[in-house]
């Protein structure tokens, strides 16, 4: 019965796995993307899951998705729409109906598309595909639940456990459809279930049966192959933004010769940073899971005072709670990295969805004149670089630094070439140049304007810091009006000065264009792809993407003044646009915004720019 299906060569494909939040779609998607990466594909992934851990089974609210974009060329985003949708139930089909490309394949579990399943998902007819108006799609139905039960009928597992393995059957089918050898998946499963050999055996059996089912029944007319990508030779892994952020902090601490401390309180979608660091006791990382967000930053401030490279990780609501303490770190002038993994707001908002609406909070959300450094990472893998740079700036300039990432890049993965720490810039801890007798707590480096960092335990340098305004030199409490002005001015000047130590802004795309797209942070992939597409279609466009927000790169004004039309694209109501306008009032700035808890889609940007 075995036949060879026709193999179609593709240079890229988008696959979306979708099912109940208990169906194991995140694992399935991760395995599929990892084994594609091993085969030499570029990858970009995006998990899209509900806030409820287990919403009622089969309902629209409980649908959890994981999108994977594979390519033989540079992949910047997880893709707008899916070439292949794996739908484990009717709800998953309904939720994702707009996410399927015309002509796409829908692989679905026939067993869940029964009357009860259709009703739960709110279908009123027995043909959901027709009801949704899906015409130009290729349907690939298989009784995944029944086949999984058959596969494991001799396993001795109870029905519930057996049915839970059906995601592996779907993965096996997907592996067959995309010519992914399953022995690679086997390796990942062995790591994942190392401590549960029975579950491992069951998963492997279902996986292999799923693959063979596709192969034997010739389930689809054709299968697909995506060639190896032509990226830099080297050793790669796949990494999500939260893990990359944690690694960046670890690398910076090692480079600076400092012990790393994290004070943090669990909050979606930032908690994985704490998980990663808590696991790194082998590298001496000290993690305190604090009693609340405020204690998270306050323990970190204490650790910084005591000489550690200290960080706290949070998301928007947590950043709000930390505001007063950030002010303390600003005025006490202590190194501190504050990671804000942005999510939909305001208030509790959309905890599992992405947004860029904390920018103004990061820049200005404190009492008093309270300047600090704001950086924003652009992709899952460059969270490593910007976490490293956040730590470097915090330590060398003795200041708090807010690193903005977001739910999209924090949970999304990309391919990451393993870095060589030796190639990263040194991190030099600014110790006093004066001897103990003549040193005062607020003496400054004449170039960088930072005060020096001396930890308790250092003989002779005992000093007091605090939140009250302090004397310009000694640090003793001062309420003198002129002194306050001087202190306010120098705290700002210290931050402004950092512009001398960060890279200049680069322009991507057609630099001779009239139109400049501006973006910042986690929209990088989408904006870059949009600019590529615009230029391919003759719409000359350039892209200036910001990772350094406060201070801005020194050449920002020069670049902005070169373009006739400037459009700031961001996932908020125009916060970066407002900020740029306040900095460069003479430059006219347009904006394009989306606040739906979802990343941009490339076509949205392309369509908007061409409509101008």
């Amino acid at each position, binding site marked *: 019965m075995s036949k060879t299906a026709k193999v179609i060569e593709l240079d890229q494909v988008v696959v979306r796995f979708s099912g109940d939040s208990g169906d194991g779609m995140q694992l399935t998607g991760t395995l599929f993307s990892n084994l594609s990466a091993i085969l030499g594909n570029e990858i970009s992934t995006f998990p899209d899951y509900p806030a409820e851990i287990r919403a009622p089974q089969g309902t629209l609210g409980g649908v959890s998705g994981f999108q994977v974009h594979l390519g033989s060329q540079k992949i910047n985003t997880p893709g707008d729409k899916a070439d292949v949708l794996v739908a484990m139930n009717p709800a998953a089909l309904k939720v994702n109906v707009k996410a399927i490309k015309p002509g796409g394949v829908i692989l679905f579990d026939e067993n869940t598309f029964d009357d009860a399943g259709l009703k739960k998902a709110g279908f009123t007819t027995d043909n959901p595909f027709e009801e949704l108006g899906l015409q130009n799609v290729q349907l690939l139905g298989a009784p995944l639940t029944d086949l999984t039960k058959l596969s494991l009928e001799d396993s001795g597992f109870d029905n519930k456990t057996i049915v839970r393995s059906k995601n592996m059957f779907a993965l096996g089918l997907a592996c067959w459809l995309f010519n992914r050898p399953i022995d690679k998946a086997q390796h990942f499963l062995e790591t994942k279930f190392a401590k549960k050999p029975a579950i491992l055996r069951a998963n492997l059996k279902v996986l292999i049966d799923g693959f063979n089912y596709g192969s034997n029944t010739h389930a689809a007319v054709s299968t697909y192959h995506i060639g190896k990508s032509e990226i830099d030779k080297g050793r790669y892994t796949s990494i999500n933004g939260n893990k990359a952020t944690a690694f960046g902090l670890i690398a910076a601490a090692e480079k600076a010769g400092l012990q790393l401390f994290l004070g943090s309180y669990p909050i979606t979608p930032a908690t994985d940073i704490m998980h990663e660091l808590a696991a790194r006791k082998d590298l001496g990382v000290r993690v305190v899971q604090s009693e609340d967000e405020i204690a998270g930053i306050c323990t970190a401030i204490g650790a910084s005072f005591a000489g550690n490279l200290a960080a706290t990780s949070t998301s928007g609501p947590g950043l709000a709670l930390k505001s007063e303490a950030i002010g303390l770190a600003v005025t006490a002038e202590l190194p501190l990295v504050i990671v804000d993994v942005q999510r939909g707001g305001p208030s509790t908002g959309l905890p599992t969805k992405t947004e860029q609406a904390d920018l103004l909070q990061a820049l200005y959300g404190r009492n008093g004149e309270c300047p600090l450094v704001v950086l924003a990472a652009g992709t899952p893998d460059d969270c490593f670089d910007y976490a490293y740079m956040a730590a470097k700036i915090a330590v060398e300039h003795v200041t708090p630094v807010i690193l903005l990432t977001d739910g999209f890049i924090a949970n999304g993965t990309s391919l990451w070439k393993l870095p060589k720490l030796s190639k990263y810039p040194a991190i030099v801890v600014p110790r006093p140049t004066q001897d103990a007798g003549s040193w005062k707590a607020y003496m400054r480096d004449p170039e960088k304007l930072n005060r020096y960092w001396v930890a308790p335990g250092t003989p002779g340098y005992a000093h007091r810091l605090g*939140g009250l305004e302090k004397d310009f030199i000694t640090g003793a409490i001062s309420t003198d009006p002129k002194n306050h002005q001087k202190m306010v001015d120098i705290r700002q000047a210290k931050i402004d000065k950092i512009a001398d130590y960060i890279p200049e802004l680069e322009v991507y795309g057609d630099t001779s264009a009239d139109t400049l797209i501006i973006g910042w942070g986690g929209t990088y992939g989408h904006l870059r792809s949009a600019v590529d597409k615009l230029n391919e279609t003759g719409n000359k466009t350039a892209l200036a993407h910001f990772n350094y927000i406060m201070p801005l790169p020194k050449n920002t004004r020069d670049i902005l003044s070169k373009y006739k039309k400037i459009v700031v694209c961001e996932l908020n109501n125009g916060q970066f646009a407002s900020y740029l306008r306040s900095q460069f009032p003479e430059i006219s700035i347009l904006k394009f915004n989306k606040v739906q808890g979802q990343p941009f889609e490339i076509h949205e940007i392309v369509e908007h720019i061409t409509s101008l």
Partner: protein
Amino acid sequence: MSTQTYTAQDFKSDQYVRWCPGCGDFAILNSIYKAMAELGVDPSQTAVISGIGCSSRLTYYMNTYGFHTIHGRAAAVATGVKCANPDLTVWQFTGDGDCLAIGGNHFIHAVRRNIDINIVLHNNEIYGLTKGQYSPTSKKGLVTKSSPFGTIERPFRPAELTFGARGTFFARTIDVDTKVSPEVMMAAAKHKGTSVVEVLQNCVIFNDGAHKEISSKEARAEKTILLEHGKPMIFGKENEKGLVLDGFNLKVVTLGENGITEKDILVHNATTEDNTLHLKLANMTGPDMPVAMGVIRNVETNTYNDELVQQIESVQEKSNIKTFDDLLKSLDSWEI
């Protein structure tokens, strides 16, 4: 511990002390200088952390490393300091508002973790720096600017809160007792784990006489009892009174009356794990019972900071990951 000896002078900073004339904090500050000098810990190895309030200004008057932080958060900052560098001796100076109102959460969690810091709680039962509002320890009915008809709130008893959070050390003293205060502060510093010292403090401006029933020398002899580990619970001007158990409750008896001798009097055991009697002792109030002073509870158990370090060391012993590069090598990775 260093062999060098220190005097109170070594712990005084060059800053002018700015409390109101007659404030109980002056006496507390002197007791602290005395305790720190006798402890003999180098000022450079000492970190003094405070929040906001009259008591929290104390940081500026110490010639140690110090951090005057934000309202209520000193326990969290001190926790970070101790975890980052467990070799430091870490003190927290705080008041009843700072520690038990805005900082209540950090206080109970520091105590629960048993992080090795010494918390000195200046309890004047009032907000001083904001000019006279009732605090979480103000007696019910107290008339203040924010309770012009008397507060209707039930006050916290700091000892009870400490025990509720599974505290391992609690001592009480009164600002004017310059003999017992340094002693209990030293005991607090020597105790491994979170030590709470409640200092009954007089606010001469907004709550003058809050502790007047027990503040004079005579009243202290009659109406307080100094608890000392291993010694009988005896008090009174002539040491004529003592405490015994009567069923589940404590009772005051007079030696020599009804055949009572010293052998019948309870002996204080501060180190017993069970805190039932400690709580009973700490909760005693006048007029029928004496107010307990001294070290009421002093139990040794593992500290958070020790366990943190031990866990790191034991993981490091077994792990092959010694550097960031080792970590990278441990990842699932592939050549392209």
